[in-house]
């Protein structure tokens, strides 16, 4: 055994790399769901990045997750774009949730143009949030959206089928919705924090 080497000498010689805690993204976009905000590292949606929401079927609470945020943004005179939604947004229902429909742009894009339109909206810098339902989106396409969201300082959301969970994704946040046995949200990936072991229960819509 050699003599004891002081730690500072090793560090000064730059032979040892010192790990740092990853930067926790600070965010100001609560989801409106306290239990979910509590487990997310940014305290809500990661700002200027892509969030991916994976669904077993349509209509299991995917909009309940984002409507409080949309309501807050549109009431603050910010624009929101919905790119090729699977159904028509029901104006009466959205307004009940507090969304100002005058600031919601709906874009009908063909299968091939969804990603293009989404990227344009994100990159423009004039949209606070862009929600998209891409038909085919691979890793590269999602990475482009992530870069566009960072460029345009916008919140990006893609809604996809749960079967994509096994594929890697560059999204900053991945949520999986589960309808049965009871509606709940699994956090599958979150940049800047550990993935919580428990699912967050999703409240029913109020009737």
């Amino acid at each position, binding site marked *: 055994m050699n003599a004891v080497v002081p730690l500072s000498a090793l560090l000064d010689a730059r032979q040892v790399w010192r790990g740092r805690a990853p930067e926790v993204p600070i965010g100001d976009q609560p989801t409106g769901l306290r239990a979910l905000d509590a487990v997310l590292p940014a305290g809500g949606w990661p700002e200027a990045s892509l969030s991916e929401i994976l669904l*077993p*079927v*349509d*209509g*299991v*609470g*995917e*909009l*309940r997750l984002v*409507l409080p945020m949309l309501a807050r943004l549109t009431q603050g005179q910010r*624009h929101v774009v919905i790119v090729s*939604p*699977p*159904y*028509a*947004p*029901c*104006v*009466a*229902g*959205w*307004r*009940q*949730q507090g969304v*100002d*429909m*005058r600031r*919601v*742009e*709906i*874009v*009908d*894009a*063909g299968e091939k*143009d969804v990603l*293009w*339109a989404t990227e*344009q*909206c994100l*990159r*423009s*810098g*004039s*949209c606070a949030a862009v929600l998209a339902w891409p038909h085919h989106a691979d890793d590269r396409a999602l990475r482009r959206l992530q870069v566009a969201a960072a460029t*345009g*300082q916008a919140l990006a959301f893609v809604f996809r089928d749960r079967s994509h969970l096994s594929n890697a994704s560059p999204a900053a946040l991945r949520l999986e919705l589960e*309808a*049965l*046995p*009871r*509606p709940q949200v699994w956090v599958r990936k979150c940049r800047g924090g550990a993935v919580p072991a428990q699912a967050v229960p999703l409240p*029913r*819509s109020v*009737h």
Partner: protein
Amino acid sequence: MLWACIYLPSLALDGILRRRPTEGPLVLVDGPINARTIVSANDAARAAGLHVGQRLSAAQALLSQFDAIPYDRESVERWHQFLAAVAYRYSSEVSLLPHAIVLEVSKSMGLFGPWPRLESMLRADFTDLGFRHRMAAAPTAHAAHVLTTVSDGQAVLTVDTLRNALQRVSIVKSRLPEKAIATLPSMGIRTLGQVLALPRDGLRRRFGVELLASLDRLTGDLPSGLELYRPPDTFDLRIELLHEVENQSALIFPVRRMVDDLAAYLAGRDGGVQRFLLRLEHREGHFTDVPVGLLASERDGALLFEFARGRLEHVTLPEPVLALRLIARDLPAFVPAGRDLFDERHANALPIEQLRERLRARLGDGAVYRLGSTQDPRPERAQREATHDEVPIEPHPRPTWLLRRPVPLRGGNPIILAGPERVETGWWDGGEVCRDYYVIETSLGQEAWAFCAPDEQTGWMIHGWFA
């Protein structure tokens, strides 16, 4: 008064070169069919020994390969008018002189800055458009015109220095009546200074009042008497392509030029364009129209080009294109969008209006819209494309997704979460509806908005999702 003169020595040639950049020799020819002579030649042609005034047959003997294009008086006239419209941006008093445009700039300098600055702006505009020019400024329009023939960039700013500047101009370049130009040199008078020094009486007796009037207009003793240019109220530009074009991508370059011209015209008029038409002309009078409609009046060249290109890319050409025409009749006032000084958006953000235009250009006119409520209680008609939302918020539960048409519920019996809400209306307009709406939970765990016939609770039809 201060007049600027922009002299355009090769209007016809530049008009052709700007849509057909070529390195090879090119000449314009004019005259009867058996005695064609060269009226204009580009640098490459001159370097090869061709010159203005040469017979076409002589030129062909000198050089085997060159392009000869017939001189088109109409197109020259059109370019002249077009450039006047461009100059109109800088002054309300613009007039046309042979191969030149004059504009009164003494009042414009208050806005654009002193003459050297204004001159460089004018030069930049004309250079960008691809027209060679010479420029001069003088207290009278005709003096400015004469000065451009002598040199480029001369500025005579006061009446006192004007006579000095005119002193040494040779009679041949003085633009006096032709008779005087022919006779005066034989009398030993070779410069304008000498003419101006001659007794007026004698000049009148020999050459008539015409010469005196020209001299007075030159020095400013008589008003210029020029007719002022008025810009046309519609924009209509047509260019013939040199080859038959079968592929849209080959149309992009000429379209870009045309749209830039439109933008220059709009800037001069301080207007915008909301709708214009690109007409692709085929053989035998057939044509394809490509309408370009915008949501709001615009005038930025790059923007207009982007939208025009977006529309053009969707067109399939049925036949080869011979000529292009851009017609803009709807020219409303241009109101720049108001921006807040403390706007939070980052510096190079694209305004939402331009984003919508960009999306429409590629996805189609109806692809970008907003939804608003109507007074109709029938879910199918409760919303439509609109930008206003004056209707009060619905008190009954409404889903967040609305199916375009109701679909039957599959699977086991649903759990009723709320309802019924009866919707019974429309008997007066043929769209009669009588339904009980419920909020139900399907066997897959989805919350649905479904209806059935009144009081039945079977035969469920799903009309929306509480997503």
